[in-house]
């Protein structure tokens, strides 16, 4: 009934939300979900108190090949100069065709 696909989760700066969304659309991901976040990483505390130091948390469900592409693209475009952390995991979804377009 369910089928295994990839979930990519990205923590990054709120400042690049629109640029990132543009990138996602360009790659052709079937969808994404964004929530507001705060946190700490190698770049120090990002308390979310005001826009320049707020984070977002982005989730993308997609097929493995696209996930690989997505990760390498984001790595190439954003890793060097922006606060960004990404992880990938395996999840089961209904209607897998929805996420492999």
């Amino acid at each position, binding site marked *: 009934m369910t089928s295994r696909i990839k979930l990519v989760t990205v923590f990054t*700066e709120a400042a690049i939300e629109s640029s990132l969304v543009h990138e996602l659309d360009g790659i052709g991901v079937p969808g994404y979900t964004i929530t507001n976040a705060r946190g700490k990483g190698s770049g120090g505390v990002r308390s979310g108190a005001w826009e*320049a130091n*707020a984070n977002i948390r982005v989730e993308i469900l997609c097929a493995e090949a696209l996930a690989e592409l997505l990760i390498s693209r984001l790595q190439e475009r954003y890793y060097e100069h922006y606060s960004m952390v990404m992880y990938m995991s395996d999840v089961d979804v209904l209607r897998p065709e929805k996420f492999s377009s």
Partner: protein
Amino acid sequence: MSSVDPIIWFFMFGIFAGVVKSELRLPGPIYEFVSMLLLLTIGLKGGIELAQRPFFTLLPEISAVLAAGFALPLLAFPILMYLGRFSRVDSASIAAHYGSVSVGTFAVAVAYMHSQNIFYEEYMALFVVILEVPAILVGILLARGVTTGSVKWSAVMHEVLLGKGVMLLLGGLAIGWLSGPQGVETISPLFFGLFKGILALFLLEMGLITATQLGSLRRYGLFLVGFGIIMPLCFAVIGAALGAWLGLSVGGTSILATLFASASYIAVPAAMRVSVPEANPTLSLTASLGITFPFNILLGIPLYHALSTKLFAILGGS
């Protein structure tokens, strides 16, 4: 003591609360709301003023201020790169911050003139908009070189012109201009009646934010502190001279000096983050928020006013 405007106490209270690590915080949406109200109000005030004079009479002033907007970052850049030994991109980014302006500082300067009953040209809100944009373009060019193909100018212009700050200032200007002084009367309790109170809340949060920047000061050392104080002073002198030369009143000259002396901490950081991501945002924010903003709020504005008064006395102007 009683001559200090209470909004300044709000700012210092914010710094204090931040320094002692209190949990005090203006909720994010409230801070955004308060900023939006300030921008709209400043725009409206400018627009109402514009409605009362033919636009073309302002063209000389507008051109001069626009030219200054391009020139100021060019002055700051070599100082940062050769004296400060910052990288090219960092120098460009900081130069863009100081070439542009701070709306919060402008609002405090306006409040200062009101509380001291000093006349100034209310259409100066227009200059806030005019000064906000050029420094960003110059900063990007300085970082990338003139022959850069890699800058996506349309994205940059989108970020700059359609960012919240410029939009609200321009929208306020347009509405004020279209409605005129009588027109806006029904909305004035919110936009004008509450102005100083809203500014007080804004400064409270600015104090809290400033306090979080103070920690980075130590890391970046003396040059940045010196730059964050001396550069505004120099720009203020240029601003005052330009104001006097343009025939502005003492109050208007003081505000132009303040605008030149102020450094952006909203529009420019956002634009630089997108356009010059290699530049270290902490560096420029530490300088503009941690040093220049409090300096201007607490000492700069009265100083620039004194400077303008002196200048007018020397020139025999009124």
